[in-house]
């Protein structure tokens, strides 16, 4: 950076973290050329790409370490078990959980929420009890609670959001009453990018003696998460959105809650003893990990979280924030662009409308320019209904994205406007 006093925010951010220094870690970014153009991958909120460090870890596991875990006494089984449990420690460090046994491996965020619904909701909630969610949840934090509502007669209460996509905090507070028995809310909205005031939301829930689950699918890979500081009771996220493999993920739960919950799935590894008369369940976390898990996926997840920690979540968040600000400013310069989700505190998600062009047409034409964005309802149809649109185009950024890629997005959107002019 020049010593000039007129340096821009963009330049300062690039000094703090230069994505070019790590783009070489991601083979796919240079291997793929949609329509002969460089890949501009802006669909990180749907799934992030995997660095060589994680790919290599998976290869090493499959070529040198694989066997079933927690079973044999032979070398490979012990090696695999050690690697699997080391991955659990990586998750523990990543979330700053107090204890390793508070980390349950899951196939992703969706399974984590379903586990809590079955393990806690079905055991402790009854007819007339209420569960609070927000209007900005994605389907995986709505549907499990609706299933519980249908089965138990539990009522779902929805905290509203305003026109910017921010939680209406006083309305959230007002939903609590003596029937409120559980809260399940997102940390970051996948469709709007809104970062919720999660610490305060936890405080309100606890002031009413109600446990709270935080859906961290969009938060975990993008900002530093400290479950002890948040004091949430459950925190769940997906590995594939955090540079790890699909089929990996984790649920954090406070030990005293996990211990009193019922198992989600029955099978091997989650038992202490089995007879046809009685089965004694294993202690946590094994109680919730029935059967042979996706061992390789979880080991890959551990490697991914170690990789992110090495770069530094604060540097990642700062760079992504600079990308979002730059993208928001550049897109706002174009005529007829409507940005959906303008909360004061946002993660690097930019949902937008190009005039009256349908988002699917936008997505197809951006792909023509090598730019990959998500189009559709983002598995968050209530959010779409709230803003009166059937779908949006969504650009979402990761730490490996560059300011030049934002420029490519803007140029491609211009071409759409010209075509539909």
């Amino acid at each position, binding site marked *: 950076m020049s010593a000039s006093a007129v340096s821009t925010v963009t330049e300062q951010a690039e000094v703090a973290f230069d994505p070019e220094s790590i783009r070489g870690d991601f083979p796919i970014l240079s291997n793929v050329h949609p329509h002969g153009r460089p890949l501009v991958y802006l669909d990180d909120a749907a799934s992030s790409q995997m660095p060589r460090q994680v790919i290599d870890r998976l290869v090493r596991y499959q070529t040198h370490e694989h066997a079933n875990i927690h079973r044999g006494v032979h070398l490979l089984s012990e090696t695999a078990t050690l690697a699997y449990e080391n991955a659990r420690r990586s998750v523990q460090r990543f979330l700053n959980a107090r204890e390793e046994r508070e980390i349950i491996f899951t196939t992703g965020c969706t399974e984590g929420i379903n586990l809590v619904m079955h393990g806690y909701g079905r055991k402790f909630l009854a007819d007339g009890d209420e569960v609070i969610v927000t209007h900005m949840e994605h389907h995986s934090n709505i549907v499990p609670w609706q299933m519980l509502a249908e089965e138990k007669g539990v009522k779902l209460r929805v905290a509203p959001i305003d026109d910017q996509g921010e939680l209406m905090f006083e309305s959230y507070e007002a939903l609590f009453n003596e029937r409120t028995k559980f809260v399940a809310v997102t940390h970051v909205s996948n469709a709007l990018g809104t970062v919720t005031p999660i610490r305060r939301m936890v405080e309100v829930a606890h002031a009413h003696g109600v446990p709270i689950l935080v859906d961290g699918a969009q938060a975990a890979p993008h900002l530093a998460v400290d479950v002890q500081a948040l004091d949430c009771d459950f925190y769940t996220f997906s590995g594939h959105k955090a540079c790890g493999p699909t089929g990996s993920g984790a649920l954090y739960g406070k030990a005293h809650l996990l211990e009193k919950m019922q198992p989600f799935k029955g099978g091997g590894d989650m038992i202490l003893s089995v007879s046809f008369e009685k089965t004694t369940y294993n202690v946590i976390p094994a109680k919730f990990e029935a059967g042979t898990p996706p061992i390789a996926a979880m080991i890959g997840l551990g490697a991914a979280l170690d990789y992110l920690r090495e770069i530094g979540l604060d540097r990642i968040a700062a760079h992504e924030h600079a990308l979002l600000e730059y993208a928001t400013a550049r897109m706002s310069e174009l005529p007829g662009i409507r940005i959906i989700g303008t909360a004061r505190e946002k993660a690097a998600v930019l949902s937008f409308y190009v005039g009256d062009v349908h988002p*699917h*047409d936008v997505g*197809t034409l951006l792909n023509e320019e090598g730019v990959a964005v998500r189009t559709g309802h983002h598995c968050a149809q209530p959010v*779409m209904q709230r803003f009166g649109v059937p779908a949006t185009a969504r650009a979402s950024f990761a730490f490996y994205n560059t300011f030049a890629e934002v420029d490519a997005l803007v140029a491609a959107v211009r071409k759409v406007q010209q075509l539909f002019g």
Partner: protein
Amino acid sequence: MDSKQLYQDVILDHNRKPRNYGRLENATHSSEGLNPLCGDHIWLHLHVTDGAIDAVSFEGQSCAICKASASMMTAAVKGKTVLEAQTLAEEFRQMTTGHLDPASDPSHLGRLAVFSGVKDLPSRVKCAILPWHTLRAAFGDKNTATTEGDADPAGGA
């Protein structure tokens, strides 16, 4: 394929100025079409006399591919018999799923051949085919069409 070939002038023109758009008084057949993945949602109205479609209109919200497809479909089936329209629907389905090439195979598709390129964009086939599913629904048992399940052009849910 180059998707700009798909977004040709004729499709952009029908998107901008859809033909036969709006409600139809005294419709004898009506149906609704929904593509849940895309959010495309259209209604089709027809007036049939002695087995012939003498009036047709559509309305709703959809992407350019779906709207242009609906617009061109209404223009194509107006004046045709129900049987001829159903034949055309089947030919359109075969073309957009890659089983009929209007350049070499005999068909009645005519100008509808501009949609042949959609077969190379699997995620957009449903957009083009929805109006035709909706047309079939208007003459079938159900008056609602979707692009999912048995009607999935990719062959199953």
